[in-house]
């Protein structure tokens, strides 16, 4: 069998690399699988990065290089690989991660940090003119539009910030905005920058119906949503900033999703035990570098706890030579506290070992045995639950022996 990683991180953007720093520093055997030849993700595609705390002035790629360097320092391994499948192995603990070329990696826990890609609207002409005047990345393609006139579709932070950036190259930017005059989806700071920039103008209440051209883009047809009127405008290019879609195709049927985004709890746990989500792939409110990094840190620590708990469980209960009494309890619960002292004295009298599972800290193992009542005590033999008593009285405990 190939080596089993403690943590396998899918995706080397802000979320994945932040998780890598924590895992590496926690001395876990960690592998980052990244689909692209270079790590950094979306952040490495923007020059305008002004809101990562502590980094007053830097570019996206430079900041991501620092994240990567930090992982390297703590011995995190990196492999190129586009993940296409994730499943729990027979043992209910190890996960098998498959890449497009058929390689299978094994890990005790997995952190999914695959981020998102630009949304394609599917407007007439959009695909046909990609790289011929239709663009999705200002940093990558701005140079082509030097001294030309362009249209930007969208009004969120990315659309507004990238429009401002593009004015350093282009002659003019017209932003096509769905909403009424003066309403954009971006925050106020970004909006003010755009409104104060005299190279930027706005076409309100509108969408782009069609992108036209011969070999290169030379115009757009714009529809006014209020009047239904369609107007034609000359343009040399169309930049699309209409949001992103999460990269979760390979998770379909494996973990619970919401509109494509991974559903996570406050420890970044997903519906599959030992699989965590971090960054833009998560179903969450704010998708930024700083929140992706925060998620990565939480996911890494949660992964470490998960492994410790599972290994303790296997070692002290499933693989134990003698019978074990397992008490699922909550140290904040009075009945639990009373039971524990009783249980310990009786167990000692029968020379049986008690293993305690604190359900307040984690419900992972309790859920596996469908524990609903706290406290519950189960006697285990050869890894199997032999006898189970829920919320026992002192007398009832005797049935366990």
């Amino acid at each position, binding site marked *: 069998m190939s080596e089993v990683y403690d943590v396998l991180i899918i995706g080397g953007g802000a979320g994945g690399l932040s998780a890598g720093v924590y895992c590496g520093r926690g001395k876990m055997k960690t592998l980052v699988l990244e689909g692209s030849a*270079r790590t950094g993700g979306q952040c490495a595609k923007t020059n305008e990065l002004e809101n990562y705390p502590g980094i007053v002035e830097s570019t996206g790629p430079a900041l991501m290089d620092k994240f990567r360097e930090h992982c390297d320092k703590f011995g995190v391994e990196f492999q190129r690989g586009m993940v296409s499948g994730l499943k729990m192995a027979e043992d209910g603990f190890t996960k098998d991660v498959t890449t497009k070329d058929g390689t299978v990696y094994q890990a005790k826990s997995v952190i999914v940090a695959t981020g998102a*890609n630009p949304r394609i609207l599917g407007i007439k002409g959009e695909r046909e003119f990609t*790289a*011929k*005047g*239709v663009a*999705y990345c200002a940093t990558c393609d701005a140079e*082509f*539009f030097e001294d030309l006139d362009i249209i930007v579709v969208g009004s969120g932070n990315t659309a507004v910030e990238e429009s401002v950036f593009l004015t350093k190259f282009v002659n003019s930017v017209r932003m096509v905005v769905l909403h009424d005059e003066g309403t954009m989806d971006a925050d106020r700071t970004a909006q003010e920058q755009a409104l104060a920039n005299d190279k930027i103008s706005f076409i309100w209440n509108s969408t782009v119906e069609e992108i036209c051209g011969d070999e290169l883009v030379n115009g757009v047809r714009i529809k006014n949503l209020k009047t239904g009127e369609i107007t034609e405008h000359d343009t040399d290019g169309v930049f699309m900033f209409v949001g992103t879609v999460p990269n979760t195709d390979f998770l379909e049927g494996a973990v619970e999703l919401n509109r494509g985004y991974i559903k996570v709890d406050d420890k970044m746990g997903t519906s599959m035990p030992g699989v965590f989500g971090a960054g833009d792939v998560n179903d969450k409110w704010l998708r930024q570098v700083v929140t992706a990094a925060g998620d990565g840190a939480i996911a890494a620590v949660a992964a470490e706890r998960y492994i410790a708990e599972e290994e303790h469980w296997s070692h002290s209960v499933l693989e134990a030579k003698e019978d074990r009494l397992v008490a699922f309890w909550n140290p904040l619960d009075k009945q639990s506290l009373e039971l524990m002292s009783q249980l310990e004295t009786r167990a000692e009298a029968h020379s049986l070992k008690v293993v305690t599972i604190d359900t307040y800290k984690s419900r992972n193992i309790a859920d596996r045995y469908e524990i609903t009542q706290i406290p519950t005590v189960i006697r285990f033999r050869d890894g199997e639950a032999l006898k189970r008593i829920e919320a026992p009285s002192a007398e009832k405990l005797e049935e366990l022996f």
Partner: protein
Amino acid sequence: MIELGKENFDSEIKEHQGVAMVDFWGESCGRCMELMPDVIELADRYESDIKFAKLNIKGNRRVAMGQGVMGLPSIVFYKDGEKIEHLSGEELEAEQIEEAIKRYI
């Protein structure tokens, strides 16, 4: 792979009899930099069949636009000087380039 620029684009590509492939790239295009090693490998493997060249858009933007290239990465195939296929987009993979090469040899 031949390095192209304003001076030699026409003589190397437009006047070439047979199939040629041009990799339009730029330093700020992450995907171009990722693909480059694979493209070089493909060039080594198939250079007896078709002509391979690359053009850094820096300083050659007009040449690229003249070829209908306004976004990176862009891999363009020519036959007897005529443009026959334009592969592009962030998701472009080396396998797609190789498939195209195989179609033209």
